[in-house]
């Protein structure tokens, strides 16, 4: 396990390096004068000249990359729109995003795993049909449509929840009221997908020979399901959660837009419209790092539950 962890952590370094190169490379594709791109169209000729020097814009790609990263980390890279250090701008919006993302992740896992297990055990029951149909809709409905429907129902018609916006920290009543709908909307797709995976892997696993062994031992049925089958099902579920996290990011951008949630996703989208390329770079880079780290945690969790990895 230690080996595995170390190997994973070491892999992180080249991965992050290549990711930043790739993002930098993509943004380099922007047509036009890169100095104008970095400063915005209203920049003076003097400032442009200064920027060309600062970012080594006349040097080869790798020098530019090094300069860019250096400026990014020292806070010299400034958002055109906010006129502020890109890292700071992103970090300010990070808390709402994390609140939304983590709540949705937790909610999805907390609902989908029990639902999937019950569906698999009570196969072809009403519960199974209901949850599977819901899950099918869940993976087919666009995040923003769920959001709009909920806003219509709870904010426009029933007027019990605020239609949009951020109500402060999620540990306050107001914050929580604002969080409920976006968090549910964001978690819905993942919930659906994880429920399906949980159910199908449980159904597969319940056919396994070792489940028969456990039953032949006289193990109680709920123990057979939770201890013997579910422990094994955790592996495919963890893989699926890992895959779903990328979708969670996409969902988060959409959810933040629907609910006017002041998060990093919306910041990034707005940055595109504002032609704020440094901010786009910052948002994409920081979110990618978060994504990589979350995936690393999923991988490590996978290592913990899989003895083949743990003991090699």
């Amino acid at each position, binding site marked *: 396990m230690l080996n595995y962890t170390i190997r994973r952590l070491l892999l992180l370094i080249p*991965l992050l390096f*290549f*990711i930043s190169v*790739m*993002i930098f490379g*993509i*943004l*380099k*594709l*922007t*047509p036009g004068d890169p100095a104008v791109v970095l400063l915005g169209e209203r920049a003076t000729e003097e400032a442009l000249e200064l920027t060309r020097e600062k970012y080594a814009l006349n040097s080869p790609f790798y020098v530019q990359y090094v300069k860019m990263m250096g400026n990014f980390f020292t806070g010299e890279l400034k958002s055109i729109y906010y006129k502020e250090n890109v890292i700071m701008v992103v970090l300010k919006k990070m808390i709402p995003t994390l609140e939304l993302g983590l709540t949705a992740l937790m909610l999805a896992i907390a609902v989908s795993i029990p639902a999937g297990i019950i569906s698999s055990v009570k196969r072809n029951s009403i519960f199974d049909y209901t949850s599977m149909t819901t899950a*099918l*809709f869940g*993976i*087919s*409905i*666009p*995040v*923003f*449509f769920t959001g*709009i*429907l909920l*806003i*219509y129902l709870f904010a*426009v018609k029933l007027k019990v929840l605020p239609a949009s916006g951020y109500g402060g920290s999620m540990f306050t009543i107001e914050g929580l009221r604002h969080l409920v709908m976006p968090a549910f909307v964001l978690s819905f797709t993942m919930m659906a997908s994880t429920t399906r995976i949980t159910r199908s892997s449980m159904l597969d696993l319940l056919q396994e020979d070792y489940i028969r062994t456990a039953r032949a031992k006289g193990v109680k049925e709920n123990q057979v399901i939770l201890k013997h089958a579910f422990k094994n099902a955790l592996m495919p579920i963890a893989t699926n959660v890992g895959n779903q*996290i*990328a979708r969670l*990011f*996409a969902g988060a*951008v*959409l959810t933040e*837009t*629907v609910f006017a949630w002041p998060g990093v*996703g919306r910041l*990034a*989208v707005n*940055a*595109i*419209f504002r032609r704020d*390329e440094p901010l*786009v*770079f910052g*948002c*994409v880079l920081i*979110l*990618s790092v978060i*994504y*990589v780290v979350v*995936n690393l945690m999923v991988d490590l969790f996978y290592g913990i539950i899989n003895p083949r990895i743990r003991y090699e």
Partner: protein
Amino acid sequence: MNNILKIKTFYLFIISALLLAVISPKAEIDYISYGIFALLTLIILLISLAIYRHKKINATTIIKGTGELVWRRLAKNRTATASMIILILLSFLAILAPFITPHDPLETDWGALSQGISSSHWLGTDDMGRDIFARNLFGIRVAMGIGVTAVVLNTLIGTLLGLLAGYYGGKTDNVIMRLLEIWNAIPFILLAIAVMAALGTGIGKLILIVSLSNLMAFARIIRGSVMTVREFDYVAAAKVIGIKDFHIIIRHIIPNCISPILVLASLSIGETILVIAGLSFLGLGIQPPMPSLGGMLSNGQQFLHENLLMSIVPGVTILLIVLSFNLFGDGVRDALDSRLES
């Protein structure tokens, strides 16, 4: 079996050849979408015909080939059949859109703003007096056309990379797979944002990005099966008698990988359509005034208090399309995956 596989590959190539034209910037999008739809419908019709033919065979008939078994499984699967019918209907609606509705989706009618259901505007009008039904039909056309195009391209590129990695192994394999891993390590939405920020928005770019989104999944599956097939004696035999690599790949390797490709492709159409709708919702996908389901919803949200139809209609449409593709994909998977049983 072999015949069916040949037909499938044949379709794949035709579709890809036609669809490649779509991303060429000069192409008239509308004209192309007619082409796509004609083709899509033709394929769906052929599939349903095949299924109909196989449905008539009763249970005691001895099944001759794997292909026949697959068709029968698909025909037996009621939800898959139903979803296919819905998809055919939607395709027809989209193709015949100009003949079904008298309204131009772009035509604004300032005298009929935000109206409800009426005999002249079947699903009402939006905030600019445009006919929602007409916009919806054209939205379906764009969503399905671009969705299918993107998935086909995605499949082709992914398959190509997987083939190269799996067949040549060694350094080629290493380079391709490492690059894909890095590509995969950035969530798709962020890549899309970066590319849109750099290059601006547009249908060509949209298709380009979406068709590069899911490469890893395809490449991995193909690489895996190629590596297995590569070891088979008949591939070695083909090499020994001096058959070219290209030929070996086409004749011996692709037919063996076709069913996982089909399963993955049919399962990813729904998701791709969702992604495109999402990007359009954000304003990064299909640009107004061209009608898109995602864009209509984004517009609809602003008028949620006044006109619910503006949100409900495109929302339900997306749901219906994606649901049908998902059910169809599930059916294809069930039919192909368990084909070796029984």
